[in-house]
């Protein structure tokens, strides 16, 4: 299992070597140049030409040096010590033959009998294209990455509205925006690109408004801070739209030309047609012209009316926008003030600010383009009002609809894919929703066969759900009636479901790059117990746990087998358009990682190991007619194609045998080396005329279809109204002709929440009766210096942050009789924990918050069990409810009822004085894999042979 060759890099005059690769200290994937001197890392810096970071790098990126030399590194395969209990961390070193043999044995048996018995879940994974492919070839439906506990609401909310979303899928154009509103984004998302963009906005004098219960990080720079009560943004957004409509400050033309707002909706209560678009026999949506004539959408060329009521062949129909206005009628600023705590006056002013900026101060770029109607526009019109949003909206159980609301607001302002607004990143826009669906039938997952379709995708009707009657097919209940649009899977459901054998038990849980025994799990102590739970005979309820990790995390302690991975500086890897691309709005881009240093002898790249396993198991396409297809991941990156002969693979640049083709072309066996020699990335800039209005830009659509981003150059009409959601509502109402659920609970949920138009409802936790006693919402924020649990084993980063108090508004604290610095209990519906209180005027009074994932389990991460991370930092995941106390059948997770997104930020608490003056609860200290680190008294890192010694040991 070669890792390819270590690149020679370029030699600089001082004898150091400079190698280009892609950072992995967070998901931003900046291009970095790593200077190596005397076989040690001298310096990590940003690559100026890289489209993501344009030469800058963040604290995490620079501190990558200390991640490489972390004492928490796993250096050899490990197996649980015979007789030792899971969770104690008692692991013994072994060799690769042994562990591969063990895992191969389990997997072979599973595949032969019931592939569903393997649940493979991956966390902050950047090779999802490969991992998803691997799992599909294995034949299990049970694979997903981290999206369920992360931001699937954001991704799905966007995909079902505009065929793109924020983060990797789209982006505020702060180079042209004059007014920028950021909702629910913490300090560092996405790190360098947003910082660069905000700086450009500031240079240009643009106005910056932050909507967040907390002010910090980016929010510190805002011209206005709008403190909002958590979980109420949906109401805020509806009220903004209310004002925009009342003041006639919205872009009618945009709605009519590019969205389905004018499309006629059938008013046929009690029938399967209710709420569905009126269509002609070709399946085209129909709209009403001002004359009253009803014509197909395309034929109307943007003249379909937005308001009115019509009768068509005896059927009452109304434009979708008209229906929405009924909802807006009650969504007054006053109503929103009561829910959000944002004064009515502020809501009105903000709406007017954005409306006036968009409508009265447009940007006009001298760029001619041709739209899907065949009309040529001499200039490109932009509405310079941009938005960015993330988990502050997404991580609530009403998040999907809130995000739908945000995208509808952007459509109203005419600011989707226009200069100064939201802009897609390639390969987006995709059809709405993108045309990938998982195979929906139990028979699609047969022993010894590959699954029939990609494992994740976007259902468009209830018929696409992975259910057998009411029963879920997937262990995580993704695409079940409970979480129908779970486009990223629902990783947070896996452990409890496997433990309770609902919908069925599994044999092997394989975890790659996720710390599910700690910070990416909720009700943490219980979850840990479930990972280690046994039946009456003393057998583990989850018989085998395989962990693929690079560091000694809390989860490693729960493994039966640990497969040690390389660090990001030791492997070949790719940031692919097939995955979460690094593209910028200017055009597609991708990048690679290459080994800068050789890994320790006992360590192998995870992907190489997975390819080895796939080969041994003779998975289709890994082994063809008995012939191994991929030597290793290096080989896979270069030669794998989406379909044999498709010409589309992991990397889009430098394809074709001679490396001259872009986007589509035969595999190039020198592709990685060519990337390596060209600063480790590839990017392509779209011609100006195809950079905007891409959902409706004829030239772009043709190009994108050639590039195989979309199947055909059909226009993508934005979903102001979501007919897809309506189909699920019909299923809930028992009206859908295809699959429909029996269970009363789910039917009710579908009917309530699958509203085709954005709506606000209280997060599910707020609907829980018991929560009346718990008046505060507890939130976390990501610190700029730490990536989830990755920072704490880094000698430099951990100095920047290693303990976390509970921040509370002093007004609230005083009203509760609490004072700064005191120990308090934080109690939620499911348990309580301690923390120290810190006053902060930068938090809304009904919110308390702390930093995410700073706390560590004692004994993990190569840290002293008495390190501040274990003794002074707190993990609020302990008290975040994982399930809802509702009385329907089975377990209901605290997930968004539409997408299955974990409702992290819905947790309600009360806070009161504590007599316990230490961190509580504490988990038992585990055995660290490497206790050596604690002896390092002084670290004076240097690459100079004459300089200080690395890791000098002393007394």
């Amino acid at each position, binding site marked *: 299992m070669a890792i390819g060759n270590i690149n020679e890099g370029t030699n600089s005059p001082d004898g150091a070597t400079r190698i280009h690769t892609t950072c992995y200290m967070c998901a931003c994937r900046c291009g970095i140049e790593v200077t190596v001197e005397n076989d040690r890392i001298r310096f990590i810096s940003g690559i100026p030409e890289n489209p993501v970071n344009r030469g800058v790098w963040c604290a*995490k990126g620079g501190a990558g040096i200390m991640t490489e030399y972390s004492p928490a590194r796993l250096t050899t395969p490990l197996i649980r010590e015979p007789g030792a209990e899971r969770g104690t961390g008692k692991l013994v070193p072994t060799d690769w033959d042994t562990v591969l043999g063990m895992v191969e044995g389990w997997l072979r048996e599973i595949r032969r009998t019931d592939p569903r018995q393997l649940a493979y879940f991956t966390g902050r994974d950047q090779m999802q294209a490969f991992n998803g492919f691997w799992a599909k070839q294995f034949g299990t439906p049970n694979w997903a990455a981290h999206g369920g506990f992360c931001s699937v609401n954001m991704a799905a909310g966007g995909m079902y509205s505009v065929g793109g979303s924020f983060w990797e899928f789209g982006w505020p154009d702060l180079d042209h925006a004059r007014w920028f509103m950021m909702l629910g984004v913490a300090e560092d998302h996405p790190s360098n690109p947003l910082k660069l963009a905000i700086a450009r906005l500031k240079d240009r004098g643009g*106005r910056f408004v932050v909507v967040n219960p907390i002010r910090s990080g*980016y929010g510190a720079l805002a011209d206005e801070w709008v403190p909002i009560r958590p979980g109420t943004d949906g109401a805020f957004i509806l009220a903004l739209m209310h004002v925009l409509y009342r003041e006639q400050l919205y872009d009618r033309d945009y709605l009519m030309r590019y969205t389905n707002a004018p499309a006629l909706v059938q008013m046929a209560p009690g029938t399967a047609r209710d709420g569905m678009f009126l269509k002609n026999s070709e399946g085209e949506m129909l709209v009403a012209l001002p004359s009253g004539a009803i014509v197909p959408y395309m034929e109307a060329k943007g003249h379909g009316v937005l308001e009115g009521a019509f009768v068509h062949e005896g059927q009452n129909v109304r434009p979708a926008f008209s229906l929405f206005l009924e909802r807006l009628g009650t969504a007054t600023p006053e109503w929103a003030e009561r829910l959000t705590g944002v004064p009515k006056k502020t809501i*009105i002013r903000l709406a007017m600010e954005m409306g006036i900026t968009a409508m009265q101060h447009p940007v006009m770029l001298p760029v001619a383009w041709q739209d899907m109607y065949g009309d040529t526009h001499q200039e490109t019109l932009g509405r310079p009002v941009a938005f960015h949003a993330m988990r502050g909206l997404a991580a609530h159980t009403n998040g999907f609809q809130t995000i739908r609301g945000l995208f509808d607001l952007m459509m109203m302002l005419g600011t989707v894919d226009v200069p100064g607004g939201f802009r897609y990143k390639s390969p987006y826009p995709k059809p709405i929703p993108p045309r990938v669906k998982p195979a929906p039938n139990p028979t699609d997952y047969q022993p010894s066969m590959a699954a029939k379709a990609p494992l994740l995708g976007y259902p468009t009707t209830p018929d696409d759900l992975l259910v057998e009657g009411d029963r879920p097919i997937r262990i995580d209940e993704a695409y079940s009636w409970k979480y129908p649009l779970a486009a990223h899977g629902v990783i947070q459901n896996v452990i409890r479901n496997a433990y309770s054998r609902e919908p069925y038990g599994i044999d092997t849980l394989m975890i790659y790059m996720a710390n599910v025994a700690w910070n990416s799990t909720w009700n943490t102590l219980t979850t840990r117990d479930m990972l280690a739970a046994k039946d009456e005979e003393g057998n583990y309820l989850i018989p085998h746990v395989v962990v693929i990790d690079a560091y000694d995390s809390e989860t490693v302690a729960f493994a039966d087998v640990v497969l040690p991975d390389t660090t990001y500086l030791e492997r070949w890897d790719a940031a692919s358009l097939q995955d979460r691309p690094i593209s910028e709005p200017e055009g597609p881009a991708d990048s690679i990682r290459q080994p800068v240093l050789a890994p320790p002898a006992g360590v192998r790249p995870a992907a190489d190991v997975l390819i080895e396993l796939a080969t041994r198991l003779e998975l289709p396409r890994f082994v063809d007619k008995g012939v191994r297809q991929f030597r290793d991941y290096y080989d896979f990156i270069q030669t794998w194609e989406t379909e044999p002969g498709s010409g589309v693979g992991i990397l889009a640049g430098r394809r074709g045998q001679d490396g001259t083709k872009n986007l589509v072309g035969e595999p190039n066996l020198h592709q990685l080396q060519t990337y390596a020699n060209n600063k480790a990335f590839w990017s392509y800039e779209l011609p100006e005329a195809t950079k905007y209005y891409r959902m409706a830009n004829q030239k772009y659509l043709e190009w994108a279809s050639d590039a195989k981003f979309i199947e055909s150059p059909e226009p993508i009409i934005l979903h102001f109204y979501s007919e897809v959601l309506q189909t699920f509502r019909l299923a809930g109402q028992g009206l859908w002709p295809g699959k429909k659920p029996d269970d009363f609970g789910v039917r009710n949920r579908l009917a309530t929440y699958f509203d085709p138009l954005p709506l606000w409802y209280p997060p599910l936790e707020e609907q829980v009766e018991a929560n009346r006693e718990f008046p505060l919402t507890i939130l976390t924020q990501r610190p700029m210096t730490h990536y989830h649990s990755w920072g704490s084993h880094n000698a430099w980063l951990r100095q920047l942050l290693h303990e976390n108090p509970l921040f509370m508004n002093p007004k609230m604290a005083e009203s509760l009789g609490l004072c700064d610095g005191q120990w308090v209990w934080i109690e939620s519906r499911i348990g309580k924990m301690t923390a120290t209180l810190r006053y902060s005027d930068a938090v809304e009074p009904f919110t308390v918050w702390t930093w995410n994932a700073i706390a560590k389990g004692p004994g993990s991460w190569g840290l002293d069990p008495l390190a501040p991370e274990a003794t002074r930092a707190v993990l609020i995941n302990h008290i975040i409810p994982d399930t809802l106390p509702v009385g329907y059948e089975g377990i209901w997770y605290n997930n968004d009822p539409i997408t299955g997104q974990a409702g992290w930020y819905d947790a309600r608490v009360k806070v009161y004085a504590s007599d316990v003056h230490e961190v509580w609860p504490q988990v038992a200290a585990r055995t660290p894999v490497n206790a050596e680190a604690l002896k390092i008294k002084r670290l*004076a890192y240097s690459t*100079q042979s004459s300089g200080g010694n690395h890791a000098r040991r002393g007394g």
Partner: protein
Amino acid sequence: MQLTIITDLNKCVGCKSCQVSCKEHNTSGAFGTVPDHDPYTDPDGMWWNRIVGMESGEYPNTNVLYLPKACMHCYDAPCVPVCPTGASYKREDNGVVLVDYDSCIGCQLCMWACPYGVREFDEQQGVVKKCTMCIDRIEDESLPEIERQPACVQSCPTHARTFGDLEDPDSEVAKLVAQRQGFTLLPELGARPAVHYLPRRQVPVILDESEVLRIMEERY
């Protein structure tokens, strides 16, 4: 010539990139190492550039501010005259204040004298260390152009930091200070720092308040 770094507080998000890139460069640089104590227990280490975060004002009129703080390369650097050995000196040609480790006795008097708390003591080596304005980068002609600036300036993800000659009126830094009311810290202590900060500047609302009130009263 007086080299300096200007930080635009209107752009600094407190990300600490400059804090880490400083350490990253300098620990292996000509003035390294930049050591750490108990790195995997209760950590405490040397940093030549520390970001201070603070909030001011009362909710909801709260402001949050981040302040990167490294050597100010003062004109009247108090750390220089107090040094008995001449180890601390200010370069005549470019105004950079440096420490010559060979003649430093580690008395730490300069640490007391520096009003900004930016000098740090390396007990093991027995010398005082601090920001060197990355003199080993800016004077190393073998480096590519982009690296001949301080590491902290190069890395800053908001380009809040600008490096240049304060005394050259045509330089970016001099213009920023002049046009944006650049200010120094603790001016009352008389050290006359070369390092300046640019204050926050608020972009006003495009609507006037009375207009909003009128609309609200009339229609909402």
